[in-house]
C-alpha cells in the first residue's frame, strides 16, 4: 500500500475498484486512501479514468467490484444523496451549476441535505468570505457568471453541505493561469481553515502538485505511481509527461519524441 492504510485517520479507503461504461472497463482495479486533512491529487491524461473514479466514489456510478469505505463504513452501494449526507461532496467537472437560478439560490441548493437550518445563513457568510465576488453577484443568474466565478460558485455550493471530504473534478478546467492560481489558493485555505479533506483530479499537474500533500497517477484505469507530492514532482516521468520539463537538451536543440515511461 501507498499511504499507510492501517492509520486510524483514513477518511476514504478505496480497494480494488472496477467501474464500467457498458462493456468498457474504465477503472481496472484502483486502490487508494485519503487521510484526514490532506489534499490528495489524482493526475492523469484524458481517458485515464479520473472522472469515473470520482463519480464512482460519489455514488453517481456504481462499481462492478471493489469497496469504498468512508470512515470505515462501506458506502459503495449507497445512493448519491446518502453519500452527501455522509460528508462527501462532489464538485463536478465543468461546474454544473444551475444556470437559471441566482447565485444565492445555487448556494442554498448546496444545503439541501442539511437538517440544521439555523446555521445555514452563517455558512453562507462563510462562503461569501472566501468568495467575495459571489456576494456582489448574489442576485445575478449563475449562468451569466464567468468561468472562474462559476467554479467558485460550484465549490461554494459544495461547502454548504459541510463536507468532510470534497471531490474536485478539474477545478482549473477552462480557467486562465491567474484564476487557476487563485482557485487553488482558496482550495488550500479551505483545507487548512475549514478542515475539508480534498481529493482533486487534475490535468494541470503543476498547480495540483504544488497544492497537494500526496498524489496518485492514473493511466488507462490503473494507478501506476503514487507518492508524496514532492517526490512525484521530482520524478523523471512526471516531469517529462506531466510537467513538460524537457529532460536533457540534445544535440539538435529540440526534441519531439518522448522517452518511455517507467513510473519509478
Amino acid at each position, binding site marked *: *500500500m*501507498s499511504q499507510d*492504510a492501517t492509520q486510524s485517520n483514513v477518511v476514504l479507503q478505496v*480497494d*480494488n475498484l*472496477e467501474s464500467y461504461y457498458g462493456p468498457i472497463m474504465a477503472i*481496472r*482495479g*484502483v*486502490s*487508494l486512501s485519503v487521510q484526514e486533512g490532506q489534499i490528495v491529487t489524482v493526475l492523469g491524461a484524458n481517458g485515464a479514468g479520473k472522472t469515473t473514479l470520482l463519480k464512482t466514489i460519489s455514488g453517481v456510478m456504481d462499481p462492478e*467490484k*471493489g*469497496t469504498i469505505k468512508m470512515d470505515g463504513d462501506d458506502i459503495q452501494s449507497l445512493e448519491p444523496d446518502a453519500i452527501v449526507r455522509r460528508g462527501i461532496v462532489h464538485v463536478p467537472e465543468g461546474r454544473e451549476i444551475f444556470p437559471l437560478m441566482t447565485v444565492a439560490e445555487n448556494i442554498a441548493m448546496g444545503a439541501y441535505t442539511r437538517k440544521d437550518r439555523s446555521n445555514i445563513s452563517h455558512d453562507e457568510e462563510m462562503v461569501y468570505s472566501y468568495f467575495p465576488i459571489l456576494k456582489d453577484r448574489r442576485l445575478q443568474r449563475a449562468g451569466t457568471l464567468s468561468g472562474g466565478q462559476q467554479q467558485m460558485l460550484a465549490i461554494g455550493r459544495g461547502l454548504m453541505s459541510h463536507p468532510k471530504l470534497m471531490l474536485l473534478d478539474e477545478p482549473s478546467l477552462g480557467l486562465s493561469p491567474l484564476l487557476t492560481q487563485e482557485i487553488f489558493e482558496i482550495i488550500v485555505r479551505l483545507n487548512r481553515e475549514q478542515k475539508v479533506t480534498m481529493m482533486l483530479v487534475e490535468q494541470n499537474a503543476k498547480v495540483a502538485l504544488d497544492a497537494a500533500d500526496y498524489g*496518485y497517477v492514473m493511466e488507462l484505469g*490503473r*494507478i*501506476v*505511481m*503514487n507518492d508524496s507530492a514532492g517526490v512525484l514532482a521530482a520524478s523523471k516521468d512526471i516531469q517529462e509527461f506531466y510537467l513538460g520539463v524537457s529532460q536533457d537538451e*540534445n*544535440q*539538435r536543440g529540440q*526534441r*519531439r*519524441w518522448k522517452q*518511455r515511461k*517507467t*513510473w*519509478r
Partner: protein
Amino acid sequence: MTQTLPPQEKVHGLMINTDLSKGPFYIDGMDTTPKLFRKRCQNLGDRTAHREKRFGIWRSHSWDDYFTRAKYLGLGLVSMGLKPGAVVSILSEDSKEWMYTDMGVQCVGAICAGVYTTDSAVQLEYLVNNSDSRFLLVENDEQLDKFLQVRDHMPDLIKVIVINRDGLHDFKDPQIIFLDDLYRIGAAYDAANPSAFDTLIDATKPEDTAILVYTSGTTGKPKGAMISHGNLIYSVSAGLHDGPVFDTDDQLCFLPLCHILERVFSVNGPIAAASTINFAESPETIFDNLQEVSPQTFVAVPRLWEKIYSQVAIRIGDATGVQKWAYAQALKSGAARAKCLADGKPLPIGTKLAYRFWDFALLQNLRRMIGMDRLRRGGSGAAPISPDLLQWYHSIGVPVLEGYGMTESSGIISINSEIANKIGTVGPAVPGSQIRVAVDGEVQYTAGNVFQGYWKDREKTAETFTQDGWLRTGDIGTLDNQGFLTITGRLKDIIITAGGKNVTPAEIENKLKFSPYISDAVVIGDKRKFLTCLVMIDQENVEKFAQDRRVPFSNYASLCAAQEVQDLIRETVDDVNQDFARVEQIKDFRLINVLLTADDDELTPTMKLKRSFVEAKHNKLISQMY
C-alpha cells in the same frame, strides 16, 4: 547457368537439395538470397510482397516495389562509397524499410547488421565501431538523437540515413541524409549504370558473409555472429522442408528483425516461399494485428503464446456457468482428439463426432477471436515453453510446435513438425544436420547453417567450435532414442553450491516460468549454502489474481509487496520444489518489484532476464536471503 547443381528435389513447391547434408545449397537454382530475391521479384511482379499499416489502413506493396526500393537503396550506398564486404547497420523497429535495407545491402555484396531500438547510445557506438559499419540507417528523430550523442566516437561512419523525416524538416547536417534522398541518389546511379545492380547480385557467393547478428551477450560485450548466404539458404531449405510455407500464406512480423528467428522467418523465408509479410504496428497492438491478419503460419516466443492463453483464460473466468461448462467440454474433446493424433492412432468415431460438434459450436469461434482461424502451423522458439500450454493449443485446434536454434546456427537446429512432434522436446534435428550430446552433456551440432565465426574475434570463435569442427551450443540436453532433443539448461549457468552440488538452474527456472503468474525467474546459489531465486511476476495475471481476491494494491511495487501475492508465488515455488531433490530446492525467493522494460539492462530484447545483470543489480535483494 552453366554450373551443374547437386541433385535437386521438389519439396512443398520449392526445388532444394535432395541431400541437405552437403553444400552448396540451392533454392530454385539460386545459391544466395540476393539471387533468389531477384528471381522472385521478377516472377511475382505486382503481387503483394508485404503490407504495412498506415493511418489505420493496411497498405500493400508489391514485389516490384520491394525490388526497386532495395535496388535504389543498395546502389545509393554504393555510389557513396559502400564496398562489397563492408557493413551497414540499421537501427529501426520492424518496417518495410528494414527489409529494403537488408536486401539492398546484401544485393550489393555488403553485410547488414541490425541494432535493437532499445539499445542505448553507448551500445550503438559499440556496435557501429565493432562492426566497422560505414553506413548507419536510423528510423526517426529519436534514434537519430542516439547517434548525435556519440557521433564523435564513430570516425569510420561515412553517412547516416534517416528513414522517417517527421520532426526533422528543418534539420540539416552534412553527414546525414534522408531515405528519399538515398533513393534518388540510387536511382540516378542506376540510370547511369544500368547493369551495375545485376552484376553485383551475380557476384554474391554462398561463402560470403550476408548478415551480422549480434548476440545478446549475457556476459561481456555483444559478439557479431557472421552468417553467410549459404547458411541462410540452408536454414530456409531445412526450415521449409519440415514447416512448409506457401505463396498464399500471410505472416505477421513482430519480433525484432535484429533477432535471428524473426530475420529468417520473416525476411528470408518469405523470399523463398513467396508468402506475404504483414508488419505489426507496434508491440502493443500484436493481438489486434493478429486478428486482422489471421496468419497461416506464425512464429512467436513463449511469452506471447502465454499472453494469448491468459487472455482466453481471463475471459472464460468471467463467463457464465453454461459457457464455462461448454468450454470445458470442448477442451475435453479437443484434448482427446489431440492425444489420438499425437499417438498416431485413428480417431474413434465418438471422439471425432464430439470434436466436430464442439469445433463448430465453440472452438472455431475461439480461434477466430485470437486470430488463429486460418493458422496451419504455429511455432515457438527462443525460450522453453510449457508443455501444458502446448497441450492447450493442440486441444483448441491450433498446432503450436516447439523448435530450437540459436544465432550461431542461423536460427534453427531442431524443430517439431506435424509428422514428428513430441511435446516437451524441441524436436528432431532438421534435415541434413546432426546433433550429438557430449560427455559433459553439451549439445553439439553440425550442418550447413553453422555460422562462420564471430566478427573480428578469433578467440571467441575458436571457443565455440569443438576440435572436430562441431558447433558448441553451450546448452545442456538429451537425445531420446527417436532423435528428439530436450534442452535442460545452459552449461555456463551451472551452479555449484557451497556443498559441492551441481545444479542446472534452467531446469528449475523453466518449471517456475510455466506458472502463469511468473514471467521469469533466476535461480541464485553459486558458492552459497542453498538455492534462492529472484522472480519477475507476470503483471497482467497477478493483477487479475489480486483483483479477483480483493487484494488492494496501487502500483507494481505494492502489488509485489502484497502478502497474498507473496503467498501465491511461495505456493508455486513449493510446488516446483516437489520435483527436485532437497539440495536443488529453492529455500527463499524475492520478487523484483520494479516493472522492467526492454530498455533495462536486466532484460534481453525478447524480455528474458539476464542472469549476470540481475545478480549484480539486485544484489541487495539477494543478500537479504542469505
